């Protein structure tokens, strides 16, 4: 039998969810690109811990694999790549918010409230998805999009993207029966490839026109 009772799992997932929301606030509030990168790495670490907890609770070996891949790729590899790119571009640019960070934080709080409201209106969701993973997942995804929409530098937009996908992963792991392994691996592969292509584009624009790719705004109308 599983060493963890369902109630204990709910509690642990809810605690991890709270920590995930906290890291999301750190990302939104980050004034420097390095902080945003470290925060998203910490967030991915929490996701892989959640995977390990759920793997222990359900005895589903697939979840161990997913937790391991998340740890290796999203908590270590991708943040490391971003870190290297920042170093290579040799700019300690701030994250350059389009609207003030305080306003973004207020929006993020609103998103969290709405996500919990929305999930509370769903009755049978509790039997399909463990604990509060659904509202936390929706909140992370939407806040990630918020970060992408309100930041002008390319690397911060990528951080937002990773955070957004962390939200989806958290919910997917907590689906009581677990997602098919092959799908999760395919999704991670896509994330890596997308990050790779984006990194190449960022570096290419930097080397040809010496501008941040997200700053280009000639195409209009």
């Amino acid at each position, binding site marked *: 039998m599983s060493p963890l009772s369902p109630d204990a799992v709910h509690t642990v997932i809810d605690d991890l969810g709270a920590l995930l929301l906290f890291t999301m606030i750190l990302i939104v509030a980050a004034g420097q690109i390095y902080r945003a990168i470290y925060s998203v790495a910490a967030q991915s670490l929490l996701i892989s811990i959640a995977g390990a907890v759920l793997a222990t609770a359900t005895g*589903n070996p*697939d979840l161990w694999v997913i937790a391991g891949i998340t740890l290796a790729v999203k908590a270590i590899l991708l943040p490391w790549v971003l870190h290297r790119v920042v170093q290579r571009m040799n700019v300690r640019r701030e994250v350059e918010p389009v609207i003030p960070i305080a306003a973004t934080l207020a929006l993020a709080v609103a998103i969290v409230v709405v996500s919990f409201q*929305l999930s509370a*209106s*769903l*009755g*049978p*969701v509790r*039997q*399909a*998805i463990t604990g509060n993973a659904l509202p936390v*997942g*929706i909140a992370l*995804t939407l806040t*990630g*999009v918020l970060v*992408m929409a309100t930041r002008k530098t*390319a690397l911060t*937009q990528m951080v937002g*993207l990773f955070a*957004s*996908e962390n*939200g*989806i992963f958290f*919910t*997917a792991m907590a*689906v*009581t*029966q*677990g*997602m*098919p*392994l*092959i*799908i999760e691996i*395919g*999704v991670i*592969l*896509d994330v890596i*490839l*997308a990050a790779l*292509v*984006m990194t190449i*584009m960022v570096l*290419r*624009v930097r080397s*040809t*026109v010496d*501008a941040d*790719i*997200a700053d*280009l*705004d*000639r*195409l209009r*109308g």
Partner: protein
Amino acid sequence: MAETLLWVLPLVPTVTALLMLTTRDRRVLSAIDVAGSSVLLALALILARDVAAGGPRALGVFRVDALGLVFLLLVVVLTLAVSIYTVGWLKQAVAVGNMKAEYLRSYFALVHAFVATMIVTVLADNLGVLWIAMEGTTITSAVLIGYHGHHHGLEAAWKYIIVTTIGISFGLFGTVLVYAAYAAAAGVHGGAGSLSWSAIMQVAPTLDPGIIRIGFIFVMVGYGTKAGLAPMHLWLPDAHSQAPTPVSALLSGVLIKCALLGIIRFQTIAAAACGPAFPARVLIVFGLTSVVVATPFILAQHDIKRLLGYHSVEHVGIVALGLGFGGPVGTYGALLHVVNHGITKALAFFAAGKAIARYGTRDMRVIRGLLAVAPIGATLLMLAALSLAGVPPFSIFVSELMVLRAGIGHGHWLAIAIFLAMVVVIFAGLLHHAGAMVFGEPPATASREPEAWSPLIGMFVLAAIMILLGLTIPASLDRLLQRATEVVVG
């Protein structure tokens, strides 16, 4: 036989892409390009015949039914037309330095990788595989959009990859929610087959409508971004205008249609779980928004490829309206419109691409008197514009009329009124733009070279299909569309 083909079809463009890497010679590359696309078309036709005779076929995560077949045939026909067009287009583009000769093989390899990912989206039964392939199309085509390497192209590519990746992650969230509802209802454990659309459809009426509703909205936003539905269409005009012309034709002709297929798959699930009224309402709202948002941009546009891009937003909106009005007529009309618009829009991009090469600009205020310098190309451009505007007897008129009829039949008067008003305005705007380009006095800068044969052949093929579909719908296509409609409507 047919089952094996399901695996072979995506492999053909993959192998073609790998073959491209073995040579640098432009002629050899073009030959492989056309050969690979021809093989693909032939195999798809064999599969189509088998499915027509023996019904849907499935193998592993792949499955083809009449609905998928409509989109598959569109993909392979346009791929071949694009390959033929590329031969002459590329020769000219290399000559003027628009495409660098040393990178051609990676261009061709990427185009075929792009086609391979689109074929997987069309054949995918597993909704997870559908999502992965959809993200795959983003990655391959983003590189192609920025292929010219100047910073406009890179800007468009960045906007495209960021906007569609955000969008598509909503699609993944929606997929997860639908799966959660399915897992709760059917009590399955996560095997690879458990995201199968056909398996979910069997228990769809028992799924929890609350979760499915939220899931469908997420999917609609997600795949709708990729389909170019407003207000998520922000990437589309930039990407369509900056990409090399053959890639623009693929983006507009088939990529956005593949995303629509994803939406249709989820629409059927949502219709079974919470009644057809809910997904219909969502589709009508997005469809109308797209038609309305596209109109002013079409009228005020000076860049010919952006014009065609915004016009795609309008037509995707019309397809969404057709699906939303629903019923056999609306759905049939929407599917026919997918085919008609794909063929016609690719033709329009081809003709526009040749005109752009001739005048050295995309600005429609400079492109004048095309009829005097390139009579055949000008005629084809005019035909495409007439068809896109919805003039009878061209094919788009037929499908728009069906969508309209479905709307009237179901009493969506307000939607019909808005739709008609916008279509009339766009009709006038588009014909004004096209007339100004085709007639009049050509500027002295316009090239007067004779027209190259290979782009013309590519265009003739599409123009022939377009005119044929306007006059009559062949019995075999009619049967296919009927069956596809049954898959959606039930």
